[in-house]
């Protein structure tokens, strides 16, 4: 029994769905960021599964995984800086309350 491309793609779709739930449903801004990390991980699994099963001699998917990792790192740094600034000025990281304070 071997795992094939479909298994990995299904897994990645499921992981993406879970991450999406984290983004849509969590109240804590940092928990939302964690959901985004899950979604990016799902994308990386997809890239590497395609690389392994469809084009093992191409370097292109790997390059894009590296780009995704870079973006994830940048997103985490900037996102957390924003969240900490929000925390400083609003005293909360609860997305509901931050939304209510506008205008």
């Amino acid at each position, binding site marked *: 029994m071997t795992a094939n491309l479909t298994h990995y793609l299904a897994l990645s779709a499921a*992981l993406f769905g879970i991450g999406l739930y984290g983004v849509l449903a969590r109240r804590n801004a940092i928990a939302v960021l964690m959901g985004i990390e899950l979604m990016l991980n799902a994308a990386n699994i997809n890239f590497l599964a395609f690389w392994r099963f469809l084009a093992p001699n191409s370097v292109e998917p790997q390059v894009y995984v590296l780009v995704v990792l870079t*973006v994830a790192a940048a997103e985490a740094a900037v996102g957390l800086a924003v969240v900490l600034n929000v925390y400083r000025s609003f005293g909360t990281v609860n997305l509901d309350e931050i939304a209510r304070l506008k205008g």
Partner: protein
Amino acid sequence: MISPSIFVFAPLASAALFTALMVVRSRNVIHAGYWLLPCLLAVAGLFGSLEAHFFVVVQILIYAGAILILILFALMLTRDVMDPKQRQTTKFAPLAVPLCIFVGLGGALMMARAPWPAIQAAAPGPAEQTKALGLGLIGDYALPFEVASLILLAALIGAICLAKAEKEPAAPEPVIDLRGEIELEESVSAGAADGH
């Protein structure tokens, strides 16, 4: 090895999905952060089962070693505002569940039904992979590489600006729990009143 064994894939996949569910479902957000660690490691394991050895290490190094630490750091700095006993989900959560099930299952089904070409080729060894990736980054794929470094630079500057901005306006009000002191004062004044 042409394809990874299902006995490697299944435990890793179920671990990744279970820990991911715990990440989004844990009431205590610090626990959610710590569930992310085994999740990232399981994904690293999945990369390993795909023979992408370099990315196993990069996943641990960047995700587990740097990004997650940053997230935990932020969680600890904001620890006093999200009580685990509060509701942890927004009012959209009931809507989000079917949507996410739809996206997850629909995506999985769509991916499964798509006619992927069946190619059975061995992956190159880890040394060749890493070498080819390095050559690719300074050769054909120099543009994505440069774009990625530009993004990093922008993020660097942006994060510094955001961190510095808090010094410009009036000093932010420190969050101090005064309850203990107020109680103390009350008891002191009560005692003084008794004395008189």
